[in-house]
């Protein structure tokens, strides 16, 4: 199980790198699907079963279909080359990324040893507990989320409508 975790973690990182570095948007989208599936596997290994199923249904199912539809609708094709950034832009971006990486790594590793504890098996992830929390403690955020989806639906329809001039 431990080996599986690290194997899937490597798979996640590699597919994420392919998403960012690939020139063809369709390949990027397919690699993103692979990334979502491996993240769902990680959720399974961390015993969050409900979230793992949601990850596959929502991300790999709904969101990626939407992405692929738009990519094919726009007929983008392959970029000639990865864009050349100005030297200053590139240096600043890399500096930012490295600073964030080192900062969080430092915080994580030297955090007083509290985080080094291994994760023990638990029964937290079962659907019953999640459902109970969702419909008792988090009922208001749940309803607000449904409102958000309604607003997004209306906004999308309005944006995608062809203007009649």
């Amino acid at each position: 199980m431990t080996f599986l975790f690290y194997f899937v973690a490597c798979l996640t990182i590699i597919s994420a790198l392919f998403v960012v570095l690939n020139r063809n948007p369709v390949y990027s989208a397919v690699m993103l699907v692979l990334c979502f599936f491996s993240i769902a596997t990680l959720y399974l290994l961390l015993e969050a079963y409900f979230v793992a199923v949601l990850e596959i249904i929502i991300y790999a199912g709904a969101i990626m279909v939407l992405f692929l539809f738009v990519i094919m609708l726009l007929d983008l094709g392959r970029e000639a080359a990865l864009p050349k950034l100005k030297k200053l832009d590139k240096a600043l971006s890399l500096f930012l990324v490295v600073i964030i990486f080192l900062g969080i790594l430092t915080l994580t590793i030297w955090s007083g040893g509290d985080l080094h504890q291994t994760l023990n098996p638990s029964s937290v992830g079962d659907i019953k507990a999640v459902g109970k929390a969702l419909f008792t403690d988090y009922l208001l955020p749940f309803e607000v989320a449904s409102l958000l989806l309604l607003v997004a639906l209306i906004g999308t329809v309005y944006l995608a409508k062809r203007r009649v001039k």
Partner: protein
Amino acid sequence: MIVPVEHVVILSLLLFLIGIMGVLFRRNAIIIFMSIELMLNAVNLCLIGFSRYHQSVDGQVFVFLVMTLAAAEVSVGLAIIVALYRNRQTINIDEINLMRG
């Protein structure tokens, strides 16, 4: 499952940084969108790790809400990209530098 929670945090950190690199380096609006999805997933992974660490179900509820937000964000964002492409015939963000339509 014997994995320290810090390894989960470092994995989610790496994913988040890959997402940041995608947003900073790429000029294709759709790839930038995918990178934002990667960053949201990195945060979700971190939340799940800590939910496991604290033996609490709250993190999973937050992940549920983040997924709802991501779905809403993608539908509106892709609609904006389609509208943009219809007006400008490009989604290269270097060429889209005017706020007025």
